[in-house]
Structure formats: structure tokens, C-alpha cells
């Protein structure tokens, strides 16, 4: 169903972090941009559809007081209605760049105020919904930034205060607007999921409790929450009620990345067991309940997958990164 394409060589191997790959397709010229976190820096690469590398750039975490070499935790392209911003989270704070990484337009330092002594400080979890960018932090607090159509006047407009342990991932509903049930879902180290609805302020719609495993990766699609857990399970919930509709014993090790192809309802999961799976989400027309079907399994030999993304909204191609792997693997539909 999918076949392996020419991999894109990288200058650095990715760090064993969650959701360690972001993909941005550029329409003209037909290039794909990749971002992966090496640890001390972020590698930005662009490649042709044949996998030939075209250009590359490295970005570092902004230092500030204290730590000499802060680690970066995540890199993500936030696609907003009028612009695309590249957001980096690190142990120091949040950096926002123009999408090619050429200019930093905004910097937000993390507040270490009330942190207990044995607490690691970092920001992690990035998503964009409407003209807002959401970023998670070590305390569980989710920062909501209001982004203008252009220019650097980005403002911290709200803080969502429901989680109590570090945020792992945040996801937004890809098809935004009017009749959306839910707009954003946030996940944390305890496996707790919070579903939010936009308004004058973001309002908590549902809480879905964890069960002892962190939730490293989460996705939201047409009122459905898909979550991958540290014990290898994938669970799918009804966003409005929090009801569990599907429980999958998907992987033999922790899930490290999930992605969704919104035009096809395809879900991609990558885990530390070296497997990548593709699933199909659908709604049963009679019961209205969400169902999942397994489509494809791919073994990335001897590799702990740390990032996996669809390269197009129909899910006809995807890319994978792994710990100790000096290249981005690409697959496409036959």
C-alpha cells in the first residue's frame, strides 16, 4: 500500500523527544520542509518531491540567564489564516520565527516563579487554532498567544489552567470554524486530556482522565479525539462527551507521535517499538459512534520512532524520524 521513497539525509540525528518531526508543504516551488529537533538545535531542511535536499538551516535555543546550552523540546509550524510561523519551545522559553526560520519575530521567557526545586522547567506542546497559538509548559499551564496578520505584535492573551503536570502535546481541529464541536485538545504527563472550545475566552468542554500513562501525542478531528499513550495504546474519544469509543492495543512500546490526514480521516502512529501504523477513522452512520480500521503496518528496522507526519492532507505520503537515524524516511502510496 505504501512504499519507501528516497530518504532525506540530515546533518544530525533527532533527539528521543515526543512528536519530533514537523512537515510543511510548500506549493510553489514543489518543496517539502522538515523540522527536527537534535537537542541543542533544530534542523530545518527542505527537499524536492524526490527527496533531494535543497537547503538547510540550524536554529538554536535563545540562552538567557542560567543554563549555557538550553535544550529545545519541540519545533512546529503554526499555520494561521494569514501567515505561517515556526514555533520553537525550549528549557528557556518560546521562540517564534518566520516560517523559513530566517527572522525571530517573538520571544517569551518561561516563568520559573513557583517551581518546586526538583522540577525540570521547559515549554512543550504547540498548536494553532484560528489566530491563536497554544503552547504548553512544565507546570501544566497552557499559554494562548494572539497573533496579528503580520508583524511582531504577538500578545499573550490567556492562560489555560487545568493541567497540573507537564503538558506533552496540544492539537487543534484542522477544519476550523462555525459548527465545530471542539477547537483544541491539550494532553499531559498523567494522560489527562482537556478539550476546549473557543469563545471570548477558551472554555473547558470535557476532561478525559488518564490511567497511569502519559499521553505523548494527541489529535482532534471532526469532534473526535485520538490519543496515543506511553503504554502503547491508542484511544479514540467523542470530544463533546469524553466517551471512549475505540481502544487499540496498537504498539509494544510507548507511542511517540500521532498525525492526522484531515481530508481522508487517516491516523498515523509511530512508537518506540519501531513500528508505524496507519488507521482509518470513520463514523458509523447508524450509531454515530466512531470506528477505527487498521490500514497499514510499517516496520522501521532497529529504530525507535520519535516523529511521524503525513506530508499531505489526504495522507498519501508520510515521513518518519527515529533516534540515532541520520535521515528522514519517506513513504508514499502506490
Amino acid at each position, binding site marked *: 500500500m505504501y512504499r519507501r521513497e528516497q530518504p532525506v539525509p540530515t546533518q544530525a540525528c533527532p533527539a528521543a523527544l515526543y512528536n519530533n518531526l514537523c512537515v510543511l508543504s510548500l506549493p510553489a516551488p514543489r518543496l517539502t520542509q522538515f523540522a527536527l529537533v537534535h537537542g541543542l538545535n533544530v534542523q530545518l531542511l527542505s527537499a524536492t518531491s524526490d527527496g533531494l535536499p535543497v537547503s538547510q538551516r540550524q536554529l538554536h535555543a535563545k540562552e538567557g540567564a542560567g543554563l549555557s546550552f538550553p535544550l529545545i523540546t519541540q519545533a512546529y509550524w503554526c499555520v494561521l489564516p494569514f501567515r505561517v510561523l515556526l514555533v520553537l519551545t525550549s528549557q528557556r522559553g518560546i521562540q517564534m520565527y518566520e516560517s523559513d526560520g530566517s527572522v525571530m519575530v517573538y520571544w517569551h521567557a518561561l516563568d520559573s516563579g513557583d517551581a518546586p526545586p526538583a522540577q*525540570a522547567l521547559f515549554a512543550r506542546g504547540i498548536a494553532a487554532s484560528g489566530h491563536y497559538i497554544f503552547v504548553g509548559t512544565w507546570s501544566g499551564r497552557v499559554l494562548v498567544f494572539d497573533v496579528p496578520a503580520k508583524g511582531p505584535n504577538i500578545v499573550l492573551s490567556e492562560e489555560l489552567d487545568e493541567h497540573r503536570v507537564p503538558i506533552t502535546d496540544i492539537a487543534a481541529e484542522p477544519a476550523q470554524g462555525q459548527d465545530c464541536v471542539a477547537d483544541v485538545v491539550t494532553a499531559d504527563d498523567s494522560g489527562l486530556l482537556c478539550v476546549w472550545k473557543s469563545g471570548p475566552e477558551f472554555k473547558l468542554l470535557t476532561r478525559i482522565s488518564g490511567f497511569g500513562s502519559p499521553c505523548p501525542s494527541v489529535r482532534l478531528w471532526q469532534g473526535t479525539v485520538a490519543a496515543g499513550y506511553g*503504554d502503547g495504546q491508542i484511544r479514540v474519544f467523542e470530544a463533546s462527551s469524553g466517551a471512549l469509543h475505540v*481502544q487499540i*492495543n496498537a504498539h509494544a512500546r510507548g507511542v511517540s507521535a500521532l498525525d492526522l490526514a484531515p481530508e481522508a480521516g487517516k491516523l498515523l502512529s509511530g512508537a518506540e517499538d*519501531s513500528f508505524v501504523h496507519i488507521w482509518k477513522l470513520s463514523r458509523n452512520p447508524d*450509531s454515530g*459512534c466512531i470506528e477505527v*480500521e487498521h490500514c497499514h503496518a510499517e516496520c522501521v528496522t532497529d529504530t525507535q520512532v520519535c516523529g511521524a507526519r503525513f506530508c499531505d492532507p489526504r495522507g498519501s505520503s508520510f515521513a518518519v524520524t527515529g533516534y540515532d537515524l541520520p535521515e528522514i524516511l519517506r513513504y508514499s502510496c502506490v
Partner: protein
Amino acid sequence: MSVRSLPLLFLNLGGEMLYILDQRLRAQNIPADKARKVMNDIIATMFNKKFLEELFKPQELYSKKALRTIYDRLAHASIMRLNQASMDKLYDLMTMAFKYQVLLCPRPKDVLLVTFNHLDAIKDFIRDSPTIMNQVDETFRQVIEVYGCLSAGEFHLIRQTLLIFFQDMHIRVSIFLKDKVQNSNGRFVLPISGPVPWGTEVPGLIRLFNNKGEEVKKVEFKHGGHYVRAQSEGSFDLYGDRVLKLGTNMYSISRPVETHVSGASKNSALNTKERTAPNPLAKEELNFLARLMGGMEINKTSGPEPGFRLNLFTTDEEEEHAALTRPEELSYQVINIQAAQDQQRNEELTRIMGEFEVHDQPQQSTSKGDDLLAMMDEL
């Protein structure tokens, strides 16, 4: 990132070091009493109370250089000497072994079981010395106390932090290559069969529920691996069956320790920021190291015992050859503390050294501070 990874890194690397030294001491036919003295001295230094107090404080993992310097000191805590080439090889083996163990842990929490395997073995090494045994037991209890109640999420962060530390290390180890545990490109083999981690279900099942929470359908799918249920969970107590074999001693007299030092990987010229820094020591790092060193007992003045040199290679010629041919990007650049030009730093170092109590060993020099500084000169 996690501020709790350093003790685990130190104890496990130390454990691997002891396995290798023990094997080499026997392979080189070092007299039993000398060998025992070396092992006892190193273990006593490793589990020094003040030293461990510093180590267990919540803090970031330090640089590879700083850590290597500590093990250099540790290996020289007794009457044994190692040439640079042998010390490099020892460190290569230690780090690749623990990297392998962390990577292959079924659950992030299982790194504790690996630690306990090392501690269990260390207790066996010093079973005839009750004082040192006490120190090790104390540390064991401290590990249980500090890590016993951490959440799965916190263990994931510890694991990620350790794996970031081990990134870009792809040295090929003969014993791993022979056992087909490492590929010829330096990456480890990840099996896709065997028991799943404790608490994980065997992959291959999709369960569908209705709005009332009732299961309405079960569908199996082909996931590609060959997994079975886990039989039992290892013990996290002071004593018990750890179940996990990672962290137990893989060397024996018939399995010599060899490494191929391969700098061939095109990605090894990374860590650019660390390597190109003109002054390799940030002030914080120097202070931290000084505090740690200050807590270490250096047992050099122990009477008529003459020292000896341990070789990690089979012959002296091999050792010399290894020293000459080690690829540049793999040099560890051990910190020579005395080389730091800053006068203020040296004063602070002397002050910190002077604060630690003098143990009742016959001292040749006027103060413990001078003695330790003098020793560091020789590194």
C-alpha cells in the same frame, strides 16, 4: 532536561566500569589482594557520602567532558594506573553499554531495575567489607526513596534526558557485534518479538464501544511483531528478583573487552556548540566539579603497596597503536582543572577543597586542599 538523571547516569556507568575493571584485573593476572584493594578503593570513593549528597541534588546533566573527568579520577582512586588510550577505551565501553541498556529498557521505569542490577553486583564485589557495604546499602535506600514514587511521565523525561546525553555515540563494541546486539553501523538491534513491557497489552486488538460504554465489537489486526505477555514484574525492593537482565555483568574471563573505535559516521562532527567553545569550562561547571572532587577520598598514601598499570588492550603495542590512531572527533578532552587561568576560580577551588574534613590517613602535605590540587595537576 530532567533534574534527576545524574545519579542514575553516574551509578550505572560506575557499575559498568567495575565490571570491566574486574574482568581486566583477572585477565591481566593481577594478584588477588591488589585487585581487591583496587575494587574496594574505587567502590568506597564512588559511594562517598559527601560526594553522593552533591550528586543527588536536583540538577541538569553535565557535559560529557565533566563526566569523563570524574571517571578518570574514580579509576585512579587507588594504586592502579591507566594510560590515556586504556582510559578512553574503558569510557567507550561503559557509555555504549549503558546507552544500550537505556534504549532497550521495556518501560522507562525499568532503568531503575538496571540500576539495581548494577548495585546488586557492586554489593557482591565488596561483600567482605562491611563499612563499604553500608555505604552502598545507604545509597540503595536513597535511590528507592528518590525514585520510588516518580510518575511514568517523570521516568519518560529521565529516559529522554539520558538518550540526549548518549546521542551521536555510535562506537562499535566487539562483544555487542558478536552477540548481534549492535549492527556494523553502530546502531543497536531492536527486537520486535518477546514479552511486552509489564503493563502493556500485546498489540493486535481493536475494541469498539457504544455511547453507553459497552463493548460492541472486537477486531484483530496484524501488527507485524511477535510479542507475548510479560510474565512478571521485576522487584523494586532492596532485595529481589529483578527479572530484567539489562545491567547484569556481560563480561567474563572468556569474553575479552574489545572496541572498534569507529569515527566513520558522518554525523560525528556534531555537538558543535560544545566543541567549539573557546573556554571549555563554564564557571558553574567548574564549581560543581570542584565540589564533587572535594568529596572524593583519594587514597594514594597507603604504605608499601606499589602501584601497577592496567591495560584495557591485550598488549602494550596495541594500546600505543590505539592512542595514535584514535579519531580526532572522539577525543574526550579531559578537563585539566589546574589549566584554568582565572585566579579567582583557583582560590574558590582551594577554599572548597579545604572545607572537607580530613580523614585519618597519613598526609604528606600541609593541607588537604594543596594535596588534592597537586593530584589534579597530574591528570
